């Protein structure tokens, strides 16, 4: 662990802008800056992976680290920053972790097998209940940051996986491959070494996008159904 003192932080700065100030200082002294992942800085790309004062993405709710602002801290505070912690997210450097396990779970079934042909049926040919469409959307807003895994005492990726399973399971287009999808994605999740869900619910609290635990319940139902029908 390394400690840094840092001055001249305005409450209007984002957390990452505070990190920029620190890194500019280190760099101009010829020292290595602190490495961290970041890109869009508006809470949508999912790159941020900081565990701040014991919470994924820090003390604020429904935000990623880049949307966290320094007004949430007091002058003189000591802030502890760690990378997202999980065996399934090996550390690359400093606060940068490798989340390719998430991609591999998506490769296992996070898609609908439809080629681009230009001959798919008209988008309005299947009406979809607005309620279901909205729920599918809510699940689909997962940004794949991994806060759920970092937060979970079991390093479970159930919230992440169930968000994708639910999105497709709620839509008619996703039905054709529904059984295969849930079985394959869960298998890959297990193979990667993610733990199981014990319904603590911490993931839902820390999720920057407010993905609901309901999705895990839905995935469990889908999984059982698929097991029995296969």
């Amino acid at each position, binding site marked *: 662990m390394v400690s840094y003192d840092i001055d001249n932080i305005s409450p209007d700065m984002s957390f990452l802008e505070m990190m920029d100030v620190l890194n500019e200082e280190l760099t101009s002294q010829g020292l290595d800056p602190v490495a961290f992942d970041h890109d869009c800085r508006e809470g949508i790309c999912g790159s941020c992976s900081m565990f701040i004062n014991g919470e994924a993405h820090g003390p604020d709710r429904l935000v990623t680290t880049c949307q966290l602002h320094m007004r949430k801290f007091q002058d003189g505070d000591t802030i502890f920053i760690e990378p997202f912690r999980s065996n399934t997210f090996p550390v690359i450097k400093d606060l*940068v972790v490798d989340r390719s396990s*998430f*991609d591999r779970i998506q490769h296992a079934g996070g898609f609908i097998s439809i080629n681009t042909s230009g001959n798919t049926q008209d988008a309005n040919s299947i009406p979809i209940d607005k309620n279901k469409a909205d729920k599918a959307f809510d699940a*689909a807003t997962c940004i794949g940051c991994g806060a759920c895994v970092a937060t979970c005492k079991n390093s479970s990726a159930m919230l992440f996986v169930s968000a994708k399973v639910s999105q497709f399971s709620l839509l008619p*287009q996703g039905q054709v491959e529904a059984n295969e999808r849930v079985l394959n994605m869960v298998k890959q999740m297990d193979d990667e070494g993610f733990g199981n869900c014990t319904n603590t619910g911490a993931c839902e609290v820390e999720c920057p996008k407010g993905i609901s635990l309901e999705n895990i319940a839905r995935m469990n139902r889908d999984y059982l159904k698929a097991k029995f029908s296969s």
Partner: protein
Amino acid sequence: MSKLNSKIPKGPISEKWTNHKNNIRLVSPANKRQIDVIVVGTGLAGGSASATLAELGYNVKSFCFQDSPRRAHSIAAQGGINAAKNYQGDGDSVYRLFYDTVKGGDYRSREANVYRLAEVSANIIDQCVAQGVPFARDYGGLLDNRSFGGVLVSRTFYAKGQTGQQLLLGAYSAMNRQIARGKIQMYNRHEMMDLVLVDGKARGIITRNLIDGKIERHSAHAVVIASGGYGNLFYLSTNAMGSNVSASWKIHKKGAYFANPCFTQIHPTCIPVSGDHQSKLTLMSESLRNDGRIWVPKSKSDAAAIREGKLKPTDLSEDERDYYLERRYPAFGNLVPRDVASRAAKERCDAGFGVNKTGEAVFLDFASAIIRYGKEKAHVKGLNENDEKLVQELGKEIIKSKYGNLFQMYEKIVDQNPYDTPMMIYPAVHYTMGGIWVDYNLMTTIPGCFAIGEANFSDHGANRLGASALMQGLADGYFVLPYTIGDYLADDIRTGPISIHSKEFDEAEKLVKDKIDYLINNKGSKTVDYFHKKLGKIIWNKCGMSRNEKGLKEAINEIKSLREDFYKKVLVPGNANSFNESLAKAIRVSDFLELGELFAKDALERSESCGGHFREEYQSKEGEAMRDDKNFTFVSAWEYNGQPSNAILHKEDLKYENIELKTRSYK
């Protein structure tokens, strides 16, 4: 002799694309398996192209600098995607979408390309719905639409304020299916460092692994650049921190012409700059202008009082407010195109009516929309429409369902509740219409090198309409390039694998390594960000929302000397063989420092105002942009010639055969 051959097919505009598809050469399924294609970038264009090319049978290698293809910056697009579906029955058609886009682009785009874009737009929506993209729907279960700037119909499909995310995740899922099949080899955290030409054709790229710094060689029969735009030239923009011009600039230096670099979009509704520490700007979607009304106080003293915090915007009555867009442009009101809205905001702020501490902000107000929706909802529910509290509550609920995530973003950044007080907004750099010159097949002036999405120049002219970037990225990637690339690759069915052990690869790799060594060993005194910020200030002040001859000439000189300074004084800590973000940034900024000069040169050369390019010398009495169609109805395509300042101008004359050239009016 100019190399510019746009290869626009003959025949009536509505038949060009169909005829072209019928006549271009195809590659058989068996032969596709023998052909490799490199795609750089995994945003909407690159992601959709990778997936579709792999579905067709090509062996695809995809590259992105992020840790996963899902994080490309298309993910941040908010408002929506246009398509000529006419689901609302409000008179939309392929022709209207085509017309609106050409007019919106201030008559500086290529008719045939834009028509094709409008033509395939409807297919995009069908394809995305089939992929499971959860677009917004109405209570009947059908797809919902909203309006965007510069048009008089509702043709924008959306998924709350996260349309880009949903579309990108759709393309990402299509990629995942092909990655699982082994048809796409995915290279995350890899940055393209150079293009390799063999016998004048694009045959591969040199990359740097951002984790361990390893320089790698990758070969292919064709290279597709889908690396997005160059808005980060301005340092502060709505682009992601990593967005860069390097892939485009590298191919430019190898022979691809760069078209209209000065055509930049300054988006009117962004959260204003709060201080020097600012690292990026955040967009508030144009969709907000469906319901938000833009205003500043009518009197300067009220504006000053608001700036000093002595007066609240909600204290001002209706007749003390100047809804300047509604006043100046009654037909389109708050939904004028972006360039017009941005300039109008700048005009008011420059005149002293700005409303935040820095004087560079205007209000975007939802109060009347909240009341309108609230009353409607109360009426539907049979409740008292005159109960103000109830109306407010119901109205805010509806606004939340439409723009909830945007309001939340605003509140987190500014620490004010936009349901109760108007948002403050100001224009910021958002998109670049200019880019690599491509022909109708989306091929650059380098054989075998293609450019798609924001990286190319072709569809938006001098100003892009809202919700058209997503449309273009997906059109290029799903429906255009996969066809047109075959015409080129048909010659390569007997070529066999391209070796990476050739003198061309040796030379390209050596140049890359030499540059990295130089930067690492320079051990200067100034950080990379120091230079990037300085460059951004020059560009914003002298090549931003308005430009003039004197400023542009100064900018050219200042950028040149800043670049010299950069190579003398830049300090890159660490080493080349590890995760080193400073090094990655240094390479990107070194390319921006060259592009900046060409950008200013292009703006200087174009002695007219059009779209986002506003030259102060060329404006009407009312301050509207004045085009010079007689002398400037062309695309400026720049050929690299040793130095950005020595670039050679080639002109592609634009012919308008289906739309009459006339002054754009939104009054």
